[in-house]
């Protein structure tokens, strides 16, 4: 199954895969009428890189992606794609939102969702050319979704749903693909399939940025990580950023990294070292 999913979404029929673009944050600060969610982010993601954004809930991962998409305007700094302001480069972007944000009761079939990927290019009227529909079917087949074109999106498994939205983004042939928690709520096999597929896209030259909160299951398998908690705490390959002090600072909680050969496993400590210490920390409990 994994081999089938890893087959090229484009390229093996002679088409040239699109080259990835560079994403650059230059002193970017973002806020929603309150304290900054992202503060003074300066970062450059080279063309063709596969980067994971890690950090706790509320650390600004989604805001980072939305700033890269031009959906959130920075209050300071600028986001550049190949040196151009993001607003001028939207045609190069593909976005896969969190599946939790999708309205699953909306009446759309798998094919209708994928065709949305080129909604503006295919003409605004109700019908779609046979050629575009064939292309959508080929893409779906390459993502392991053949025969599901007429199914409602709710009738699919979690992994299939995730891939439908990936297909919508890929149907546009993006040069920068941004994914918000693409592996949340899917089983281990689907997670592997999605990661293999992203690695394959990266090998073809697409720049990919994905957010994840799964350190052991996802982040450790990615070639490059950005640790984000309002500011960039650290960045580099997992072997560099997976260190006790970096992760403890990132999560504001004691975390330990255990290494077994090339694999790093993060272990958290949900309880203080001694139960007595927890009791002593609470004055009310002490008095009672």
């Amino acid at each position, binding site marked *: 199954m994994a081999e089938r999913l890893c087959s090229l979404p484009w390229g093996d029929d002679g088409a040239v895969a699109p080259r990835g673009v560079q994403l650059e944050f230059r002193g970017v600060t973002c806020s929603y009428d309150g304290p900054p969610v992202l503060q003074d982010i300066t970062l450059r993601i080279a063309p063709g890189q596969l980067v994971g954004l890690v950090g706790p809930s509320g650390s600004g991962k989604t805001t980072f992606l939305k700033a890269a998409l031009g959906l959130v305007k920075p209050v300071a700094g600028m986001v550049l794609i190949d040196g151009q302001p993001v607003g001028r480069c939207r045609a190069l972007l593909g976005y896969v939102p969190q599946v939790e944000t999708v*309205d699953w009761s909306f009446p759309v079939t798998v094919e209708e969702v994928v065709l949305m990927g080129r909604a*503006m290019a295919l003409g605004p009227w109700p019908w779609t050319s046979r050629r575009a529909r064939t292309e959508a079917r080929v893409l779906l087949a390459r993502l392991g979704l053949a025969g599901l074109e007429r199914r409602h999106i709710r009738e699919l498994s979690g992994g299939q749903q995730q891939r439908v939205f990936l297909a919508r983004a890929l149907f546009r042939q993006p040069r920068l693909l941004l994914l918000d928690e693409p592996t949340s709520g899917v089983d281990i096999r689907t997670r592997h399939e999605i990661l293999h597929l992203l690695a394959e896209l990266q090998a073809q030259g697409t720049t990919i940025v994905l957010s994840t909160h799964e350190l052991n299951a996802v982040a450790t398998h990615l070639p490059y990580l950005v640790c984000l908690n309002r500011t960039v705490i650290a960045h580099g390959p997992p072997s560099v950023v997976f260190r006790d002090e970096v992760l403890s600072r990132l999560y504001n909680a004691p975390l330990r990294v255990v290494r077994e050969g090339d694999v790093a496993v993060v272990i958290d400590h949900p309880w203080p070292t001694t139960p007595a210490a927890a009791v002593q920390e609470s004055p009310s409990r002490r008095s009672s």
Partner: protein
Amino acid sequence: MPNLVEPFGYEFFTRGLLAAVLAGGLCGLVGVYVVLRHMSYIGHGLSHSIFGGAVLGYVLHLNFYLAASVWGVLSALLINETVRRRRIGADAAIGIVTTASFALGVAIISHARQFTTNFEAALFGNVLGVAREDLLVVAATAVGCGMAVFCAYKPLLFATFDPEVAEVHGVPTAWMDTLLALVLAATIVASMQVLGVTLIAAALVIPAVIARQLTHSFGRMMLLSTAIGALCGAAGIYLSYFFDVASGATVVLVAAGLFVLSGLYADLRRARRRIAQLAGPRGAPAPLD
């Protein structure tokens, strides 16, 4: 035994029937977006708001449609802007703007009692009140709104399903929202005479909800909802003639009856599918509902 073809001999009836079919179909078409965008309350509020504008226009001796349209467009844009900003609870803001506007209409009517009967039609719908001019307005609005929805089908679908990603894909979502608000205002103004402001919200919502129960495809839902709206319009006017009741009420009651039937049909279909799945592993996996 009443003569079932008798009403077709009257010009006012055929005119009213045609207007109801067009208004019902138009409400069915626009209602798809109203339901899927969770705008039912806006539809309800906007229809009440327009009533205030229509009454004010009457007092100022302005053309009914002109006054209602200007008021409707202003209300729609105001509501749209309120919803986009989201800071002041949108539902509360809509409630205030539209109910205040409706109250203005009621206040003017109660002060100058002589035109109460005329406005009963605007409140509850009256097939007898459909003049040649009204029919032309409904027809023109139906063609105009139909064209607008047709020519912006894909961007409207994307902006309705997933506005944020639609924006990334270059869909002018703010323009789509404005277009829909204008289409909704025009639909309500044009349907007021046949359906009545107090009942338009149901004519907008019910056909779309019935269609949703019958299909999973957006395109098919649009066609079905339009057809169901037109059918309810026709059946409602026909029954309104025989039972001598307000046309808006019969149109909505027919729609509500169809809704009950479609709900039963959807339940039956779901049960049959479950039984088929339990009987054998072949075929499609179970839907996750």
